[in-house]
């Protein structure tokens, strides 16, 4: 199993636009990724409601997990997304 532990970088945490961006990226990732806070239950990263319920704020440490082919790149890509301050970045044109 591939794992990455990262700190949520968006100012609003894993809420609103950052959550939407993360969930959309997870939906098209090459492997099924799960996300958990600390030792909590790991939830499907494609589930907006589950991701929101994590209540992750800026600075919360989360762990991404995935198995099988392409697990590594999938987890890397989503981890990189979480670390950025997505609130500071401009929206789509």
């Amino acid at each position, binding site marked *: 199993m591939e794992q990455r532990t990262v700190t949520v970088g968006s100012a609003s945490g894993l809420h609103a636009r950052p959550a939407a961006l993360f969930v959309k990226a997870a939906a098209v990732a090459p492997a099924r990724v799960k996300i958990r806070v600390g030792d909590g239950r790991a*939830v499907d990263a*494609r589930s*907006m409601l589950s991701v929101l319920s994590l209540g992750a704020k800026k600075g919360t440490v989360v762990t991404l997990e995935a198995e099988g082919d392409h697990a590594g790149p999938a987890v890397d890509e989503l981890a990189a997304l979480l670390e950025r301050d997505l609130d500071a970045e401009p929206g789509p044109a």
Partner: protein
Amino acid sequence: MTTELTGLGVSPGVVVGPVCRMGGRPALPPAGPPPADPEAEVGLAAAALETVAKDLAARADGAGEEAAAILEAQALMAADPALADGVADRVRAGASAAHALHAAFGEYRELLAAAGGYLGERVADLDDIRDRAMAAALGRPLPGVPAPGYPYVLVAEDLAPADTVGLDPRTVLALVTERGSPTSHTAILARSLGLPAVVGCRAAAELADGTVVRVDGGSGVVVAGVDPAGIAAGPPAAARPDYTGPGRTADGHPVQLLLNVGSAADFAPDAGGTGDAARAVGLAGAEGVGLFRTELLFLDRSDMPDAAEQQRAYEELFRAAGGRKVVLRTLDAGADKPLPFLGLRPEPNPALGVRGLRVARVMPEVLEAQLAAVAGAARATGAEVWVMAPMVSTAAEAASFAAAVRAAGLPTAGVMVEVPAAALHADRLLAAVDFLSIGTNDLGQYTMAADRQSGDLAELLDPWQPAVLQLIAACGAAGRQAGKPVGVCGEAAADPLLALVLVGLGVTSLSMAPRSVPAVGAALAAHSLAECEQLAAAAVAAAGAREARDAVQAAAR
């Protein structure tokens, strides 16, 4: 083959267009036996969720940035795979699609609500998606104002203020409701947007989506099944773009024509190009603001706006009024028009409860804060600001309010007359305050003991009811005796025929939606004060509302 339906015409104009029904919130039907074909039922639920997700994503595309973010998040929630799994599990366990959806959403609702804060606020978004998905699964129209992508006639059981936030007069051609009365929110909204509207049209329940109808907001007649090509839509009646003011009768007796507004945005020029000449003329020609509804600025606030924020909002409006007089009404809230930050307890009869000035009995600091902010804004802008309180019942209340206004440094205090007791004691009220403003919508409600929202009692709520006119006459006489102004700011002021009667009863100013100003101005200019007084006498003496209107219609120019 056409069918004719009748209701009450509350906003004039004739249009032809297709019906789009606004769905109400679907009620969960009683639980039945397990579905005969569970997999088909799973498919039905999944299709409902997909429909909702697509609809929300499409709306996000056309929306402003902030709205788009919320709609997109909602679309993702509707498309949530974990939610879909939860629904499917419940269907396979024996629930119908609607019940499975309700329960699955309920689970997440509890999670979000328990988390509170930002997540707690998402509960309303989730409920909205749940209602839409249930409606889709039950084969009903989706709740909320439709956005089919073409202009249409909005048909609904009734319209609440929250339902119509963001209603775009460029895509909605007319309003038709099954319930509602001349003073209901639908009527007020329609007049302010310049949309033809018919309320209390019970048969509208049978109008199907797509039916082409001809709506006449003046006569209240809706004709269904017309040929869209055959009938030309007419422009709203009496635009009279040549009015410049000031308001006066034919023999020069002044009657100030003023505006009813809720925010500085109400003064904005019409950027959408709907070509509403009457509104532009009204904005320019009116002599000031006769009713500034301050609560509209704070309708969605859960924490009290502080002094600085209030002052900024008031300054913005005073400036938008461009040096003209502004009559500001202090917060008019009650259990039915809630201002969340007041935390008012629910009441069994909100119309008869702690509302308007009565809130100051339980929360005096709210009124003090508002008056201080108004005074600050008046000083900062140099505007001429008059302040009045809603829902005043006694001369003692009026006197105490006037004292508070003057203590805050504002020179001119008045009260609204909405309660019959206030009308009967208008002379005592005028001994304590500088002016009166009659709220005819609520005065009609309390005098005729008829709920403003009731479609069944619409006739009792007709502003032409002679008993109500008689109370207005009492106020007019008191004003004349005291040498103080008595205005009308209810919907009655916007009716050119009724305006003549009001002036004949002694009313000295009329406040209305901007687009109504030119027609009222023209009607006044065509009659002398003596003629207005004759029309008023005929109206008060009439046997009923319809007879009063007919008598004045026959005698007026």
